[in-house]
C-alpha cells in the first residue's frame, strides 16, 4: 500500500485513480440500480398479454428472448407484436392480446420454429400441448349461458371443443323447469389460445384467458381425495363401507344418485287420487 511520509507522485496518482474509480462505480452503480428496479417491474407480465406458444415461464423467457421479432415475422396471421417502450410488456418481447387477435394454433407452429434461442421451446411440436394461458369463465353474472340462454359461442369456437370446454347441464333454479348449460374449462386441455375470449358476444368478454399461475388454484400436497384413494386401492381405506339404513315408510326407498326419496313404482297406480294409467 502507500508508503510512509510525504505522498510521492506515484501515490498521488494512485489516489486519484482510486477516487476516479470510486466516482465511476458510484455513478454507474446508481444507473444500474435504477435499471435493475425497472427490470424487476418489467418482469411482471400484465394478465391481458399472452406469450406465443411454447414460451418459457415468464422469468426465464425474459432472459432467453433476444427481442429479434422472428416469431412475429413468421406468424401467418400477424397476431404477435413486439412490445414498444410505452407498452406494459418488457420492451421488444413478443405478445398478443386474446380479445384483439387470438392464436390460430397452426399445426406446424411457425413462431416456435422461427425462434433462434429457444425462448419459445423447440420441444413443443404438438400445438395442443401449448399452454399460453388458461381460459376462465370469470363472470358468471353476465355470461348468457349462466343466465339460462343458449349462447354456447365460447364452446363452439374452441379448437378443442368438448375437451378444453364442455357444457355441463344444471337445473335452472330461476325457472325451475329449464336446464342451464354451463361452459366449463378444463385446464388439462386448454391451450390458452384465446378464441373463446375473442368470440364472447358480450361487450366485455365473460370468459378470459389468464396466465395459468393466476387462474389455477393448487390443492395442498398432503391432501388425499378419499374417493380417488378408494378407487386406487379398490376398497375403502378407513373403514369398510356399511350400507346406510333408512327408516322409511313401506314402499319408499332412497336413491343416492340424485332423485332422493322415491316411491316404488308398482304402487303408484294403486294410490288413491292417482291418475289412471299413470306409471
Amino acid at each position, binding site marked *: 500500500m502507500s508508503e510512509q511520509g510525504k505522498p510521492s507522485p506515484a501515490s498521488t496518482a494512485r489516489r486519484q485513480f482510486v477516487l476516479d474509480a470510486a466516482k465511476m462505480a458510484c455513478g*454507474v452503480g446508481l444507473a444500474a440500480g435504477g435499471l435493475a428496479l425497472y427490470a424487476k417491474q418489467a418482469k411482471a407480465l400484465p394478465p391481458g398479454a399472452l406469450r406465443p406458444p411454447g414460451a418459457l415461464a415468464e422469468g426465464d423467457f425474459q*432472459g432467453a428472448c433476444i427481442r429479434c421479432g422472428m416469431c412475429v415475422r413468421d406468424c401467418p396471421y400477424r397476431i404477435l407484436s413486439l412490445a414498444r417502450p*410505452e407498452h406494459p410488456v*418488457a*420492451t*421488444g418481447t413478443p405478445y398478443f392480446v386474446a380479445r384483439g387477435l387470438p392464436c390460430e394454433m397452426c399445426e406446424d407452429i411457425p413462431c416456435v420454429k422461427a425462434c433462434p*434461442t429457444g425462448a419459445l421451446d423447440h420441444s413443443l411440436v404438438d400445438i395442443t400441448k401449448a399452454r399460453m394461458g388458461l381460459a376462465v369463465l370469470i363472470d358468471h353474472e353476465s355470461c348468457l349461458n349462466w343466465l339460462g340462454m343458449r349462447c354456447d359461442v365460447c364452446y363452439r369456437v374452441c379448437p378443442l371443443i368438448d375437451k378444453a370446454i364442455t357444457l355441463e347441464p344444471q337445473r335452472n333454479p330461476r325457472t325451475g323447469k329449464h336446464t342451464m348449460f354451463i361452459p366449463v374449462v378444463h385446464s388439462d386441455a386448454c391451450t390458452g389460445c384465446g378464441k373463446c375470449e375473442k368470440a364472447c358476444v358480450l361487450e366485455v368478454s365473460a370468459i378470459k384467458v389468464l396466465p395459468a399461475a393466476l387462474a389455477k388454484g393448487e390443492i395442498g400436497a398432503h391432501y388425499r381425495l378419499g374417493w380417488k384413494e378408494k378407487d386406487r386401492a379398490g376398497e375403502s381405506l378407513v373403514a369398510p363401507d356399511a350400507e346406510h339404513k333408512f327408516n322409511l315408510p313401506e314402499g319408499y326407498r332412497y336413491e343416492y344418485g340424485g332423485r332422493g326419496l322415491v316411491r316404488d313404482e308398482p304402487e303408484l297406480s294403486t294410490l288413491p287420487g292417482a291418475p289412471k294409467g299413470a306409471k
Partner: protein
Amino acid sequence: MAAVKRPGAEAQAVKGWLGSHRWLVARRFSQLSILAMFLLGPLAGVWIVKGNLNFSYTLGVLPLADPYVLLQSALTGHAPEGKALVGAAIVLAFYFLVGGRVYCSWVCPVNMVADLAHWLRRRLGITKSVRIARSVRYWLLGATLVLAGATGTIAWELVNPVSMFHRGLIFGIGAAWSVVFAVFLFDLVFADRGWCGHVCPVGAFYSVLALRSPVRVTAARRAHCNDCMDCYAVCPEMQVIKPALKGASRGAGPVILSPNCTNCGRCIDVCSKTVFRFGLRYDDREDAPSPAPAGGVARAAIADRA
C-alpha cells in the same frame, strides 16, 4: 466567421468532393442499405432479411446474432442454442477481422443520429461539452453483464437505444423515438460525441472484440502531416489518432491500434496529405516519406508547396 475552418475543406480542394468524402459516402451507403434490406420485408413484402440487429435471418440461410445480447442472455442462465449460436459466431468472426467497431460506424443506425448531432453542434457553434470519461462505457458494459446475471432478464435491452431504434424502424417505433431523441439531445447539448464515444456499452463490447483486429487505419505517411488538425476534428474517437500519428519519436508504429477506432475512414477522407489509409495492424511500414508521385499531379504540387 472566416476564422472557423471547415474540417476537410483543404482535402476537398486537393482531392475533389468525392475524393474527400469517399469513405463517408461508402459508410452512409452501408448504413442505409442495411436498413433498407431490413425494411424491404415489412414495407414492400420482399423478404431478404427477417428480424433485426439482435438476430436476423437472411434469405433463409444466413443467421446473424448480436453476440453482446446473446452473452447477456447466457448470463441470465439460458443456454443459447441453434441458429443464435451460429449467428453469433459468424458476427464475432466478421467483426474481429474488420475491427469490432465497424459495427458502430458502418451498421448501427444510432451512428447517423450521433453524426447529425455532431454536425449540428459545429454548425450552431456549440463548443461547451460536459467532460465524461471515455471509460464510462466499459463500466456500463460490466454493469449490464452483472445486471443480466442479477435480474435474470436482459435488463439492458429494456433501455438500449441501439436496438430500440433499429427494432422501432422495422417493427414500429412508438415511444422509442423519445429514447433516440434523448441520445440526439445528449450529444447536441451535453457532450460532444457523448453517446457513441463515451457511454454506449454496445460500442464498448465491440471495442473489446477489436482488441486484436487485423484491419486498422494506419498513418502510413505521417511524415507528411502538416498539423492541420482536420483528422482530430472529424474523428469520433480522436484520442486514438495521436499515438500513431505523432508517435514516431517514441518509436511507435503508424498503425492506429486503439480498439476504440471505429474504422470509419473519415480521417482518410479529410486529410489533404493522404497521410492515412486502411492497412493491417502488423504492417508497421511507413510509406516512402518523399512526395508520393503516385498521388497525381495535384497532390504532388501541394506536397511541394508544403
